[in-house]
């Protein structure tokens, strides 16, 4: 965990879960694994609050627990996963993907489960049906079955998975004994993928329609009644104890495929991207996660699987495949000749190319196109002397030197010394400039984390500066809303609206505009973070 990552995690925890969870979570991040007492003591928080915070973190999958340093007899130790907290930045993207694939119902299911961490199927179905009903016109309501269908489809395509049950210490025995054997300590949950029923839908008996919450009841009492009803709503639907969580890895796979397909579309054309999309879809289930390339598919199979709307004839398809294979980007490779040609999509190479394009574009936007030319040159030619750089880049010596030194001071370019003599005399040493893609990607990734941290900081600062204005405008809106609901005259409404002066309105507009910009930038930086993270992870896997 780098300092920037910890800072960003702290900001995210504070925004979503409050100060207490932030304090506890950050301390755990910094100190690694701690047991409950030590954590409470070091953060100087009451044991109650620490327990609550850990509950929240475990619920959201950000904290795991397991036997500590003293072995199974000692106290449990808790560990927080920095990666998982940083995924919170990507929640809007997950929800939007679910919406584009499965419509509004899928979107709401995903939103509910992401916000609560873990939920049972019946609970989710009821909540989502109620929410959908709330937004429909009077008299209409959503049937539970629609929501169940959307939920099932999400599970079938592996976007949702069951939360793994907490392993017992004696789980080495046969499977049939596992549910029965009680243990003195409960160890950390096993990997979700190892659980055989990971994607099995439970049989639930849930019929009904969504309920619309009446808004004309007295607000508080209505909420109390609804809450009481929920608490007492223990009708057994047949899926007690089966909790579902979001399978973020599946979403990441989907995003990676999307990135590759759009890269092919922009480099070649729409049809080639369709072919690559077909190939990826066909090999989705058979390719193991983190594989360097997909399972080989034959040209015959591709021909059968390409959507008919594209009307590609067999020889044209062969030409496209040849084109894809010959492309210097090496998205697609040929793995054999049987079945009309066996083709694979080179996932890791595609990711490396995408990361390289990101690095080049960063240099271009920050330092200009000539510096970018030098950077690209060094990426391709690996090691070059200063004179060679000037010659190959066709840039006058003085400017080339300037740009090289700027890039060097920003650590985007490294200097490699090759001595001719053992005494490393400067006049008898080669000084070569070089760019290493992986360390540079890591550097930029840390810059991205810092950037997001700065964006969040700035947004909090802007909100705090204008807190008085914001509160006033919200009060006025609330008053206006209640006046309109109780049917006041337009004169009264105008009177209330005038309570905000014009310059204040302008200021509020400007504030809203700034906050929108900052939020949008966060989403944008997160896309870069995703690309760079995927690339770095892919290089560590292939070792």
């Amino acid at each position, binding site marked *: 965990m780098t300092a920037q990552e910890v800072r960003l995690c702290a900001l995210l925890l504070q*925004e*979503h*879960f*409050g100060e*207490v*969870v932030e304090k506890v979570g950050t301390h755990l991040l910094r100190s690694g694994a701690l047991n409950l007492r030590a954590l409470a003591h070091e953060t100087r928080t009451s044991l*109650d*609050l620490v*327990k609550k*915070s850990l*509950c*929240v973190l*475990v*619920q*959201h999958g950000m904290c795991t627990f397991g036997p500590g340093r003293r072995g199974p007899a000692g*106290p449990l130790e808790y560990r927080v996963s920095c990666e998982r907290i940083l995924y919170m930045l990507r*929640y*809007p993207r997950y*929800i*939007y993907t679910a919406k584009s694939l499965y419509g509004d119902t899928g979107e709401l299911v995903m939103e509910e489960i*992401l*916000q*609560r*961490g*873990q939920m049972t199927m019946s*609970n989710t179905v009821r909540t989502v049906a109620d929410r959908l009903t709330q937004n429909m016109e009077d008299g209409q309501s959503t049937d539970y079955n629609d929501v169940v269908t959307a939920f099932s489809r999400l599970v079938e395509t592996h976007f949702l998975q069951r*939360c793994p*049950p*907490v392993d017992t210490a004696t789980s080495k025995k046969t499977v049939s004994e596992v549910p029965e054997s009680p243990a003195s300590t*409960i160890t950390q949950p096993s990997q979700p993928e190892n659980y055989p029923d990971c994607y099995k839908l439970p049989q639930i008996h849930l019929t009904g329609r969504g309920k619309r919450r009446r808004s004309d009841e007295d*607000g*508080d009492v209505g909420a*109390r009644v609804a809450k*009481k009803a929920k*608490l007492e709503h223990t009708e057994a639907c047949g899926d007690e*104890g089966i*909790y579902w969580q979001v399978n973020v890895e599946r979403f990441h796979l989907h995003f990676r495929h999307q990135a590759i397909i759009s890269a092919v579309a922009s480099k070649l054309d729409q049809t080639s991207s369709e072919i690559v999309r077909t190939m990826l879809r066909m090999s989705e289930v058979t390719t193991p996660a983190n594989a360097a390339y997909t399972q080989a598919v034959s040209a015959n199979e591709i021909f059968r699987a390409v959507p008919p709307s594209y009307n590609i004839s067999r020889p044209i398809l062969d030409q496209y495949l040849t084109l894809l294979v010959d492309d210097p980007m090496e998205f697609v490779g040929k793995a054999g000749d049987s079945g009309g040609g066996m083709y694979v999509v080179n996932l890791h190479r595609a990711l490396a190319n995408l990361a390289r394009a990101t690095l080049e574009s960063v240099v271009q936007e*920050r330092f200009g196109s000539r510096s970018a030319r030098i950077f690209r040159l060094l990426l391709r030619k690996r090691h070059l002397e*200063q004179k060679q750089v000037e010659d190959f880049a066709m840039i006058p010596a*003085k400017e080339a030197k300037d740009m090289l030194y700027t890039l060097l001071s920003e650590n985007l370019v490294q200097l490699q010394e090759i001595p001719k003599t053992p005494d490393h005399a*400067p*006049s008898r040493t080669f000084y070569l400039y070089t760019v290493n893609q992986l360390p540079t990607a890591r550097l930029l990734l840390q810059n991205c984390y810092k950037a997001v941290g700065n964006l969040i900081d700035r947004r909090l600062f802007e909100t705090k500066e204008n807190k008085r204005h914001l*509160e006033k405008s919200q*009060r006025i809106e*609330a*008053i206006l809303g*209640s*006046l309109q609901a109780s049917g*006041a005259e337009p004169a*009264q409404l105008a*009177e*209330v609206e005038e*309570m905000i002066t014009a310059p204040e309105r302008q200021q509020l507009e400007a504030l809203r505009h700034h906050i*929108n*910009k900052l939020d*949008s*930038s*966060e*989403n*944008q930086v997160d896309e870069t973070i995703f690309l760079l993270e995927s690339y770095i992870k892919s290089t560590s896997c292939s070792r």
Partner: protein
Amino acid sequence: MAGRGRGRTQFTFNVDSLGFGRGEALPASALVPSPLFPPLQFRPVPLPTGEEVDYMLALKQELRASSKILPSHIRPGRVKIDNRVHDISLPFYGGHFLTFAIEMAFFHCWFQQTLEKNEKNQSEGEEDEEKKKTGEEEEESGEGEDYDEEEFEEETDYIMSYFDNGEDFGGDSDDNMDEATY
């Protein structure tokens, strides 16, 4: 030593790469530290716009707002396990206690039961609280609790009591129409 006189004018590296020749003026020395925010050479690229971007922006802001209301947002307020519970860190309705460590399982069970009890107490005590609010406003503790009841801590944007008291305000505003109010 032999090179001291003869080699005095020789350097160990290629002088051209320094950027200035011999005898020329040295580059100006820095008198102040470099600026904190150095001027940008190139302006950043504008943000992408479009339906997708706007939708994700709206989603993000909604998520942020609703996460403050959820029970997983823990406030360090007081947890009074009596008739008036003012800490709103309610239990999470999805959590199954066996997924937590055993030391917290008991805590979670107890907590859930205690707060279920308080749910019932609170709904019965609602009417009592209304009366108490007006009666006990002099009391310090009463004031503190009123503050907690009306407004949550500063992080939330909405002051809850205003949603309830819309009708009251309508009555009052008739009297104060002539004065400037804020």
